[in-house]
Structure formats: structure tokens, C-alpha cells
């Protein structure tokens, strides 16, 4: 191998790497997720509203989450009712079984079940859809055609997720309460009249409101997280698969944290009935 003399090296060495601040990547991701959430809110009020896309997505999310939601709601309501039923029998407060189980179902179980299904069934499909569009350069093409993909694709999806969450929450509440009623009255021999009459003993209208507010917020989070992961997938088809996986996991983590915060706030702000 003949080495020519006095040749300057042809390869330019890259500048020495700066040591990245630990946790920087996580902070950046969080920041970009927030930025997308803000962009979604901003674009929601921008005309023209993509009505067809919204209807299509609404229908899609509803169709994939409706049946599973109903099927999950029955055993969920039943478990709560059975548990409370045996508990209240032990402490001699049977007349309050209905009140307690309706509170638990409406305030906690229903929004969480709704959100899990929106994220698991609707969000994962949404993330996969956006992810495959991203790696096929469809999103780039849309931007180049002068169309904002957030306004065109993400906003209708997020709004659809919120809307379906609100309706689904109502469905899950009703099915859950019916399930609870069935198991308490038929299986545990509870008194139908007492079960129904005690509904209004502890529960009040704000409980229903917080339930719906929670569901809508969870729907928003599920939609934004799915869109964010979908618009920023890893490389190739495997990247899309990973993104879908992560979007569901991240949504679940955020949901339970948010649920804790919202519940704490609600209990502090709204006085319990009769207090």
C-alpha cells in the first residue's frame, strides 16, 4: 500500500460531542407533546373545520370501542356491586349499597374504562394510521401541498376521541349501574327498592359532571398522545409498531395520574352531599 507523502487527511473529524444533559431527551419529548396539544387547541378554532373527517373518525372510534366498552362495563359494575354488597352487609349499612356503587361506577370506573378503551381500541388504530402515513411520506406531501396535517388530520381525530369518550362514558355508566343492580339484587338478594332509592342519598349532580369532564379530558389526552406518537414514529414499519405500543402505554400512565389529580381536586372543591 503506497502512502502518498504530505497528504492532508481527507476526512474532516466532527467536532467533539457535547455531553447531553441527563434526561434532556425525555424533557424534549414532553415539550413537543405539549406543543402538539397546544397546536391542536389552536387549530380547533381555525376554519375550515374538517367535518367529513370528524364524522368518519367519530364513527370509526365509536364502532371499535362501543361493544368492548359495554362488555367491560357489565363485569366492572358487577364486581364493584358485589364487593360493596358484602362489605355493607358486614357493617350493617345495606341500604347504602346502591348509593356507594353508583358513586364508584360513575366517578371512577366509568371514565377510566372509557378512556382505556378509547386509548386501546381507538388510539392505537389512530396511531398506526398516522404512523404509516408518516413513513410513507404522506404527511410530508400534505404539508408541501400547503395543508396543515394537524388541522386536517389530528384535530378531527382528537375531537372525535373526546366526543366518543363523552358518549361512551354515559353508556358505560348506565350499563355498569344496571350490572351492579342485577348482581346485587339477583345474586346477593338485595332489596330492589332500597338499591334504587339510595342512589340519591349520597350521589349528586356534580358527580355526573366530573365523570363527563374526566371522560372528555381523557379522550383529549388519548387522542393527542396517539397523534404525537403517530406523527413521530421510529424508522420503518417496526418503528410504527413501537410507536403504537408506546402510545397506549404512555396514555395509560397519563390517565391514571390525571385521574388522581382530578379526583383530588374534585373532592377538595365540591362538598359531599349533606355536608
Amino acid at each position, binding site marked *: *500500500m503506497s502512502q*502518498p507523502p504530505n497528504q492532508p487527511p481527507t476526512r474532516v473529524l466532527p*467536532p467533539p460531542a457535547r455531553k447531553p444533559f441527563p434526561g434532556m431527551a425525555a424533557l424534549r419529548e414532553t415539550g413537543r407533546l405539549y406543543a402538539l396539544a397546544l397546536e391542536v387547541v389552536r387549530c380547533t378554532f381555525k376554519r375550515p373545520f374538517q367535518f367529513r373527517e370528524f364524522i368518519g373518525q367519530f364513527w370509526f372510534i365509536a364502532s371499535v370501542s362501543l361493544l368492548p366498552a359495554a362488555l367491560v362495563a357489565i363485569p366492572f359494575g358487577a364486581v364493584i356491586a358485589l364487593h360493596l354488597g358484602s362489605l355493607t352487609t358486614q357493617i350493617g349499612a345495606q341500604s347504602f349499597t346502591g348509593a356507594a356503587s353508583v358513586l364508584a361506577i360513575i366517578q371512577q370506573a366509568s371514565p377510566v374504562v372509557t378512556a382505556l378503551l378509547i386509548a386501546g381500541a381507538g388510539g392505537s388504530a389512530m396511531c398506526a394510521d398516522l404512523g*404509516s*402515513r408518516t413513513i410513507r411520506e404522506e404527511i*410530508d*406531501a400534505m404539508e*408541501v*401541498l400547503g*395543508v396543515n396535517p394537524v388541522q386536517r388530520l389530528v384535530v378531527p381525530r382528537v375531537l372525535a376521541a373526546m366526543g366518543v369518550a363523552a358518549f361512551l362514558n354515559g353508556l358505560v355508566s348506565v350499563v355498569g349501574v344496571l350490572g351492579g343492580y342485577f348482581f346485587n339484587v339477583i345474586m346477593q338478594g338485595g332489596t330492589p327498592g332500597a338499591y334504587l332509592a339510595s342512589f340519591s342519598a349520597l350521589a349528586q349532580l356534580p358527580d355526573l359532571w366530573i365523570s363527563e369532564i374526566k371522560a372528555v379530558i381523557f379522550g383529549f389526552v388519548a387522542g393527542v398522545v396517539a397523534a404525537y406518537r403517530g406523527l413521530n414514529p421510529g424508522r420503518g414499519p417496526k418503528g410504527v409498531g413501537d410507536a403504537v405500543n408506546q402510545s397506549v402505554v404512555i396514555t395509560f400512565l397519563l390517565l391514571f395520574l390525571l385521574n388522581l389529580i382530578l379526583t383530588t381536586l374534585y373532592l377538595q372543591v365540591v362538598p359531599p352531599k349533606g355536608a
Partner: protein
Amino acid sequence: MGVEVAVEGLGKSFGRQRIWQDVTLTLPVGEISVLLGPSGTGKSVFLKCLVGLLKPNSGSITINGTDLVRCSEHKLYDIRKLFGVLFQDGALFGSMNLYDNVAFPLREHTRKSETEIRRIVTEKMDMVGLAGEGTKLPGEISGGMRKRAGLARALVLDPGIILVDEPDSGLDPVRTAYISQLLVDLNAQIDATILIVTHNINVARTVPDNIGMLFRRELVMFGPREVLLTSEEPAVKQFINGSRIGPIGMSEEKDEATMAAELAAGFDLGADEITGVPPQLEPTPGLPERQAVRRRKDRVMRILHTLPPAARTTILSSLDPTDRFGR
């Protein structure tokens, strides 16, 4: 009518990896330019910077007096309506059929009636040879058809600038020739500025008015086609010839030592050397003349004294008597 794109000192890096730097070139109004370069030199990255999908680290891109690198998002979306971009795989929307794909920009940006949209879409689909294929989905057609449909979609808004990413990738030579002809015809019809990114030598030799080449993280040269095609620059010469002799190696580039070793070993060229400047493609007979040809001639004559001798001779010998004495 075309739009001029002026790129000044553009540089782009991903983290520590520098893609290219200090790229300065001007795409003249209505002319066809080709950007050459070995695989992996960031040609597609350059294209994405031009349309604002990637943000360059330094430099400016000026279109109609607006700097794309520093303008607001709102302004960027506005300027993008001037662009027609053909992505490598067409980048069609998989959920829509070809007709809806081509109609998409019209429905989003104009208030045209459906009858008028139908007329424009049919016209553009005829132009790229896809008449009557409107109901097919992008997943059901071949790569060449996807590419042509992508081109039709890029054309519906009558863009001032058309950017084409590797028109030849995945196409057979015949289809590539048709696409080349189509681009020249288009230029004659709507006088748009066209930039083609490719590594197809045939396209580079016959289609453009100007050629540039990216290599070793910078723009080796950019200028009238004669300059690059007659260049003695080793990388350019090697690339045009498609030979192994020269500074371009299997992985991006060779170092000087390997090159010297190869020369010492006396590599044989393997193929006939390609030299000279072939005649440029003409628009299909019946179409209007390319207005860019006249403008380019004037422009090149003004900068003729700055060009290398070989290019100068070629340009002068290509002039016919009316050009030389007619004005």
C-alpha cells in the same frame, strides 16, 4: 411563469453529522436544473429543506423576496402553494383513489366547483397518461403509475416551481425517458422552474439547462450544463462516467491513499468513457417553444467569460449564426 429560487450559504446537519454546508446556488426562472450526487450525499435532504420540511442550520432560501428559513409558519404554508413536489414514491394518500388524490389540492385551496375540478383533474391525468384510471387506489397500481399520479397531483395548482425527487428510481429506461420528455414538455407549456434530484446520468445529460453536483458535504459545482459535462473535476468526471476510478468509493468517498493505490494498480476503466455534451431534449412537436431557452442563452452569454475554456468552446460551437450575429 416560473419563480426564481436563491439559495445562500445553506448548511444542514443532524446532530453531529454534517450533511452538507455552504451550498449556494440560484435556480434561474423557468429553467430546468438537475442536482446530481452519489447516494447518501443528502440530495433528498436538500429538497426537503427547499420546501421547508427540514430546517437548515445556516443560510437562507429566498423565493419571491421571502426567506423560507426564517419566515413564519403561516407564510411558509402560503409559499408552499407555489411548489409542486413529486416525492420518490409519489407519496399518494393511500386512503383515496387516484382521482381524489389529484383533486385534493384543488379541494383544499380553491373554491372551484366539482365540474371545474373534474375538468382540471381529467386534463392533468391525461397529461401524465393516466386517463380513466381515476378510480384505482394507490395500492393497486405499479410504481411508475404512482409516480405519474404524484406528478399529476403536483401539477394541478399550476406551480411556479416543480421539485422532482429521483424521477427514475424504480422505473425502466423507457418509462424514465417518457418522464424526462414529460418534464421538458411541461416546462414548455407552463414555464415553471424545475429542479430534478437524481443520480441517473442519462437524465442529467439530456434534460436540464443547469447541473449541480453534491459531493463530500458540499456543492462541487453548479452552472450551465456544458460546464459540468465538460468538467475535468475528478469526482464529476467519475460520476458522469459511472466508473470506479476516482474519489467516489463504495461507501460515500475514498481517502487519498486508497485512490493512489488503485491508480498504481492500474484499474481498467471497465466502460467506455462518456464525454461531450449531447443535444438537449426538445419539447414534443406541436407544443410551444421553451421560453427558458432564450432567457438562458442571454444569461449564459453574460457570464460566458467566467466559465472554464472547455465549456466556453462547447457553448460557442452550439450557437447557430442567428444567435451570434442576429442581435
